[in-house]
């Protein structure tokens, strides 16, 4: 990437190396309030959440800034009514589907974009039982926003373990193991990278989860220790 590219973002002129994303170019122009949900500095960007969309003059649709690249003479607007409408509606739809109580960043976006938390009456949520099937972490996919980070760090983005993938499609998509096997029966090596990148508390360290359930520190130590000794864990404790 040899050449530099000059473009205008919200009337500010910036010059960045060719191949830079609009998100990074905007940051360089001092615009650091483009909201992102699925984007992570150390994961492959797939342009999933579309929260980062911006208006590019001449483009039929909005452009996701986390993956959209700069080009010379581009005129970009990061906060127009069109952009706000999409961002607000995405937040309202997401909130109607997923338990976002453990996702403080998304909560802040909802306030900033005046998203109505009751906007979609009668909307079917994505509800799943809590999966407590190993001594290291608990999976609560009712809180999963399908950002794909866990799948990616488990695969080519970090670990090359390939323990998890997807089941279903569309609204019914879920992070899943081979034939829904409990984690101990998968290739999972319990590296914990998925837990570390999960932005919504869908993946949580077992001890933290037990504490939140009201267990005392001693009880937690007891439980996780004895569980680790056991070979086969239960599949769906939940309670």
């Amino acid at each position: 990437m040899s050449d530099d590219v000059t473009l205008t973002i919200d009337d500010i002129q910036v010059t960045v190396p060719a191949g830079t994303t609009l998100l990074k170019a905007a940051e360089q122009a001092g615009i650091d309030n483009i909201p992102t949900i699925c984007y992570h500095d150390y994961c492959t960007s797939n342009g999933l959440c579309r929260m980062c969309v911006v208006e590019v003059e001449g483009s039929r649709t909005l452009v996701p800034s986390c993956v959209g690249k700069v080009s010379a003479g581009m005129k970009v607007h990061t906060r127009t009514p069109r952009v706000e409408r999409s961002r607000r509606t995405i937040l309202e739809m997401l909130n109607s589907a997923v338990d976002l109580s453990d996702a403080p960043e998304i909560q802040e976006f909802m306030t900033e974009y005046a998203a109505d938390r009751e906007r979609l009456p009668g909307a079917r949520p994505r509800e799943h039982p809590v999966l407590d099937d190993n001594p290291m972490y608990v999976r609560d996919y009712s809180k999963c926003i399908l950002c794909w980070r866990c799948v990616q760090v488990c695969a080519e983005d970090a670990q090359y373990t390939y323990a998890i993938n997807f089941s279903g499609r569309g609204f019914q998509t879920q992070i899943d193991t081979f034939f829904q096997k409990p984690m101990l029966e998968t290739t999972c090596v319990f590296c914990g990278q998925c837990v570390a990148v999960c932005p919504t508390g869908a993946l949580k360290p077992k001890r933290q989860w037990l504490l939140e359930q009201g267990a005392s520190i001693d009880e937690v130590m007891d439980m996780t220790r004895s569980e680790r000794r056991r070979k086969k864990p239960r599949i769906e404790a939940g309670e």
Partner: protein
Amino acid sequence: MPELDLTPLRSILAEYAPKGRPGLIPALHAAQAIYGYLPQPVAAEVGRTLGVPLAEVYGVIDFYAMFYREPVVKTVVHVCDDPACAIAGAESVYNMLTYEYSQEASGAPSAITVERAPCLGLCEHAPALMVKGIQRGKVNHNGNGHLIEEIGEKPYGIIAGDISYLTANCGKRRATSLEEYVASGGYQSLKKALGMAPAAIIAEVKASGLVGRGGAAFPTGLKWEGAANAPGEPKYVVCNADEAEPGTFKDRVLMEEDPQRILEGLIIAAYAVGAHQGVIFIRGEYTNAFQIMGKAVAQARQAGFIGKNILGSGYDFDVELFRSAGAYICGEETALFEAVEGKRGFPRMKPPFPTTNGLFNKPTAINNVETLCNVPLILSLGAAEYRKIGTEKSPGPKLFCLSGDVERPGLYEVPFGIPIRHLIYDLGGGIRTGRKLQAILFGGAAGAFATEKDLDVRMSFEDLRAAGLPLGSGVVTVFDETRDLRAVLLRLARFFAEESCGKCYPCQLGTQRQYEITQRVASSEMLAGDNARLSDIAWTMTDASLCGLGQTAASAVMSAMKIWPEMFVESHP
């Protein structure tokens, strides 16, 4: 559970193993043909043999509607219930079959399961169904006591129109043979092409003004030029025969009745872009077309039109058929590549485009079946003569799939630019049983509605665009005055909710929410604020979705809201 015998699986897997991951979907098809479904040990064996992580094998199985991970009965009947079949009585067919053939009615265990299916591409024979891959049409006219495989009629192409360039060999009630195709002048264009420089062919196609018939209307010559000039080897050509847009059946008819024309177009495309390998990607439900295309390829290979040193030119080209497995999204070109590579059909981000980063990340020219059928015609007539068909800005012949409440549903070949009225009234015989026209759905599920006042709009890209109507893949579904369009909208909304791949949020969430609100529209139970909700969701899907599915998922609903606001009354507080 008795131990599964994996011996037959192991022997067939030997064939797919060298392919690795791209062998996954073909291997799963083959495995399911043995066991009837894909139980865990079978899926695991396939994954291990092909070197695909098990979680990803599972992800693929669960993405495609035609793969089952639970046992199914031997005979699955798929009853189409998308608009054309729905208005022809699909629901009563479904009920009749469930009553007559399934276990719920008789109490005895039955070998038959009846399922609802998205458009089977048999709209001109509505109501239609498929029994173990066998197509049957007009199934409401009989049923009683028949063998399930013999219910209704065998559907043959119904071909008509003002011209017959693309459909010249169709209407025989069988596939045109290689000999017949050659006798009618077939493969002369390939001979001519092989004597030309690739760049000269591309120039001719550019001069013809041919644009893609798969829905996106991209100039074909420009696409070929892009792939030809892109760095990277090998290059690929792909024929997109995944036809699944509700209301579309043109590509099925072309494959079933004149397969060699498609091959000739594809070989010329390959030569023009410098590809030596091609893939014909066929919708999973189109088993008949798949067999016919397979035979056609074998015959063309034997006759020296495909293979090494084609017609002594020194040019080599071979082609593989790929059978998809039940996912509308795989018609989207990049999702199609993912499927061929053995993955879930998630569309990729564009740019980069297929011409530079296509199949296996290599330069690829992908074209629709009908687009490719225009290619031999362009070379035989010459671009100038070809342009005399159609209008100045939309040259060439066009196939329209006419279905719904018309006297004569069928596949109509016409020059671009005829008025809608001519198609529906002069050619199609007008509205059935003398009723009045209520609406025309243009472009399929991803399309928009037209009414009486649009009848004189000429069907060309430029005129339709001016009238706000998408040409799409050439779907024209007609609804008479008695039809409840809200029920039609509900079906379309359900279609998108079922077919969204789930990758990007606007469509993953929006198609579901649109479906829920449309349910309230259809049952006259709209809540205060539903119109605003529906249009926010519609705009967000259109404006912010990753691919064309989400970007058009609200198109029909939005056009209905504009034309018939009275259908969207918020009757509940």
